[in-house]
C-alpha cells in the first residue's frame, strides 16, 4: 500500500514506533507539524506531550522526564536550537539520551520561517559551550526520516547523549509517495538501567554505563556540573580529565557504529558528488541523469553527519580527483570534506537564496 505523507508525519511515526513516551516543544515554523502531531498522538499511547512556555522549558522538561524513565524527543528550528544551547550542554554532561529534531529554516536570526536551508549543520555540532561531541543524522527522503528517527532513539540510548535529527522545511512539509512497508523499523530495545553503585563511571573511557533513573527504588543523583562518579561537584583534576575524556571517547571511539553513508559508486568516475538531507535528492537525480548522458559519477549521500563519517567518506573518495559538495549554506560541511579530501579538488555548490539546489545545477558543475 502507498501513502502520501510529509516528513513530519514520518518523524512522528518513527518516534512513536520507537517507544517515545514524552515530547515537549514550542511552536515554530517549520517544526510545528511535529509538535501538533505529537500533542495529538502521544496521549493515545499513554505518553505525555507538552507545549512548553518556550524552547528552554521544552528541552528542560524532556531532560527531566528522561531521567525519570521516559524516552523523550523535542523538535524545533534554528532559532529554537539557539535557546536549547545550554540544555544541550547539560544533556551532554549529564549523559541524557534525547532526540532533538532541527527542522532547518533560512537564517540567520528569525530568517525566513517558510524557507528551506541547511545552515545549522555546524551549529548543532558546536552549539553549546565546551566543544564536546554529539551525534547528528540527516534524512534525505521521507522513509529515511522515519528510519533515522528510530535510529536516533537507538543511538541516544546506546551512547547516552543528545542525537540530532537534522532536517529542513522541504523534507518536513513536502508530501512524498511512500510504500507503507518502507516505514517499518525493528523496535528500539529497552533502556539499560541499574540502581546499584555510583550513577556515573568513566573507565574504560569509551564504555557507556546503564542509567540510574529517578523512581527506580534507589537514591539517584544527577548533575550538569563537572562531577565525580557520585554526581558530586568536583575540582579534582584527574577525575575531571577522566569524565571529559569519557564524554569524547564514548562517541569518537565508536564512529564505526554510527557511520551511515549511502555511496552509489561508479568504477569509472573521477568525480564524486556529495550531499545530505534534502540536497541528497538532487544529488541522486543528478548522478542518474549524468550517467544517462554518459558521464561517470559517484554519488554520496551522508546520513550520519556527526561524528564525521571519515572512514566511509575516505573510501568513497578513493580514486576520485574531484569532490563536489552541494548544500544550502555557505559551504559549511565542505570545511569537513576539505579536511579529509587530501589533495583532491573540493568544490562547493552553495545556495543561500532560499531555493533548493537543482539536479541541473549539480550537473552543470559535474559534467
Amino acid at each position, binding site marked *: 500500500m502507498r*501513502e*502520501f505523507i510529509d516528513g513530519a508525519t514520518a518523524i512522528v511515526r518513527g518516534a512513536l514506533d520507537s517507544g517515545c513516551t*514524552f515530547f515537549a516543544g514550542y511552536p515554530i515554523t517549520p517544526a510545528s507539524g511535529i509538535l501538533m502531531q505529537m500533542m495529538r498522538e502521544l496521549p493515545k499511547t499513554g505518553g505525555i506531550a507538552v507545549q512548553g512556555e518556550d524552547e*528552554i522549558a521544552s528541552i528542560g522538561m524532556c*531532560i527531566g522526564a528522561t531521567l*525519570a524513565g521516559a524516552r523523550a524527543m523535542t523538535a524545533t528550528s534554528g532559532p529554537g536550537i539557539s535557546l536549547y544551547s545550554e540544555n544541550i550542554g547539560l544533556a551532554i554532561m549529564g549523559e541524557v539520551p534525547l532526540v532533538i529534531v532541527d527542522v532547518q529554516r533560512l537564517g540567520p536570526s528569525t530568517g525566513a520561517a517558510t524557507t528551506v536551508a541547511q545552515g545549522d549543520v555546524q551549529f548543532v555540532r558546536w552549539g553549546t559551550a565546551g566543544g564536546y561531541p554529539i551525534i547528528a543524522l540527516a534524512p534525505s527522503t521521507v522513509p529515511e526520516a522515519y528510519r533515522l528517527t528510530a535510529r536516533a532513539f537507538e543511538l541516544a540510548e546506546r551512547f547516552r547523549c543528545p542525537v540530532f535529527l537534522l532536517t529542513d522545511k522541504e523534507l518536513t512539509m513536502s508530501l512524498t509517495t511512500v510504500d507503507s512497508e518502507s516505514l517499518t523499523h525493528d523496535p528500539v530495545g529497552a533502556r539499560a538501567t541499574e540502581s546499584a553503585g555510583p550513577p556515573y563511571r568513566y573507565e574504560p573511557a569509551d564504555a557507556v554505563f546503564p542509567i540510574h533513573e529517578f523512581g527506580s527504588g534507589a537514591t539517584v543523583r544527577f548533575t550538569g556540573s563537572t562531577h565525580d562518579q557520585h554526581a*558530586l561537584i568536583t575540582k579534582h583534576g584527574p577525575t575531571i580529565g577522566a569524565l571529559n575524556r569519557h564524554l569524547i571517547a564514548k562517541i569518537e571511539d565508536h564512529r564505526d557504529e554510527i557511520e551511515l553513508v549511502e555511496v552509489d559508486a561508479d568504477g569509472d568516475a573521477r568525480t564524486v558528488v556529495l550531499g545530505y538531507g534534502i540536497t541528497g535528492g538532487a544529488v541522486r537525480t543528478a548522478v542518474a541523469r549524468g550517467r544517462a548522458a554518459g558521464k561517470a559519477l559517484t554519488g554520496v549521500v551522508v546520513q550520519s553527519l556527526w561524528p564525521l563519517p571519515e572512514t566511509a567518506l575516505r573510501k568513497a573518495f578513493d580514486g576520485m580527483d574531484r569532490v563536489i559538495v552541494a548544500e544550502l549554506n555557505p559551504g559549511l560541511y565542505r570545511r569537513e570534506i576539505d579536511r579529509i579530501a587530501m589533495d583532491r579538488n573540493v568544490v562547493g555548490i552553495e545556495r543561500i537564496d532560499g531555493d533548493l539546489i537543482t539536479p541541473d545545477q549539480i550537473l552543470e558543475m559535474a559534467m
Partner: protein
Amino acid sequence: MTTVLPLPTYRNEKPYPFCPGCGHGSILDTLNEALVILGTDPAEVVIVSDIGCSGLSDQYFATSAFHGLHGRSITYATGIKLARPELTVVVIMGDGGTGIGGTHLINAARRNIGVTVLVLNNLNFGMTGGQHSTTTPEGAITSTTPLGNLEHPLEICGTVGVNGAGYVYRGTSFDEALHDRMVDAIQHPGFALLDIWDLCTAYFVPKNRMGKKGLEQTIDQLGLEKGVLYQRDAQDYGAAYRQAAAAAGVRRAPDTIPIEFASPLEAAMSFVVAGSAGAKVRSAARLFGEAGIRSGLWATLRGDYPVTVKTGHSVSQVIMSREQQPPVAVTIPDVLVLASDDGLKKVAGMAAAMGPGQLLITTPEFASVATGAEVLVVDPDAWSGRIPKTQLALVLLAAAARRTGVVTPEALAAAGAGPFETANLAAIEAGTSMVGRP
C-alpha cells in the same frame, strides 16, 4: 514482618558550606525536619536544585537529586513529575532563579504542576559577589546598585498566586512553624511555593545593616503579607492530563492509498499550481497528487507560501513519475496552472522561461501572460455552475489532467472523496468538461 522505622534524618553527614549566619543552612535543616515528618522514602524524594548558593543544597541530602542549569530547575522538575507522578519533587532555588527563570515559575504555577518550590530569598546574588536580584528592595545597596537599587522588587508570591498556584506561603528562615508549612506544601497536590526570606551575611547584611528584625521590617515596609497567602484545591496538571488522555482513543492506522487506476505517463512530469493563500491551492495539488498515486504513479508535492496563512501567494509543485523520487526543485515545469494575481507575482519569471511543448493553463484574466508555452484558457464563467475562488485551482488542475492525460477524471474523483466530495466532484467535472483531450 518488617517494620519500617522513620528515618532520623534525610541529611547526609556533610556539613553545609554556607557562610556563618547565612539563613540557607537553617532552611535546609527545616526541610529535613519536614521530610522526617513526612517519612517518604528518600529515593522517592527528588531535590531539584538551581544555581547559586542555594544550588549547592542538594549535595547535603541523602535523597535523590537533580542539579541543573540556572533558572531551569522548575522545567526539569516538571519533566520528572510528569513522567513519575508518584515522586515527591522539591525545587530549591534562590531569588536569582526567580529572575532568570521567571517564565518557568509563572507557567508551572499556571499549569499547577505538582511540585514544591522553596525560594531561598536572600535579596541578592550571594555566590557571585552580592549583585542585586529581582527581589532586592528599592534603595538597597549591592555591588551592582552602588547608588541604591532603582528597581521595584518582584512580588513572587502574588505573581504565582494570581496565576493559579495551589499553595503559596511567605515567611522567613526564622519562622517557628516553617517545617509545618513545608509539610503542607509538599502534601499539596498542586504547585506549591514557599518564599522564604533569609540573611546573606557575606553581602546583603553588611551593606544594608540588616538583621533578623530588619528582614521582617523590610517585608512589612514593602506592604507584603506573611503566612499562607493562596490556597487552591485543583487537580495538578499531570493528573488532569492523564484523565483527559484516557479519552483520547487509540492511534489511527495510516491512510493508505490503493492503486486502482492506470496512467500512460512515461517520463516524469512536473506541474506548478500558482494561486492565492487560502484558495485551497495546496488541497487541490494534494488531490491531484493522490490521483496520480491511485494511478500507480509516485507523486511529490512541495509548497511555497509566506508566513501569513490566508494572504499572499500559495504555490504548489507536483511531480508525477513512474519511479519513486525525492522532492526536488523544478525550475521550469511541464505544466503551469495559474489561478490568481498573487500566484502570477511568484511565477511570472517561470512563465516567461517556458517554451514550446510546455503548457500554461489559466483563466481569461491572465490569457496574455508573457510565456513561450502553449496557453490553454479555461473560462470559469462559461461553466453552467458557479465556480467559487476556492475551487478554481482544482478546476484548472482537472483541466490539466484532461489535457495531459496523466490521470483520469475517475482517478481525480476517487482522490476527491471525503468531507469535501461534493465540491471536489463539481470542480473536477467543470475542469474536465471545459477542455478536450489533447
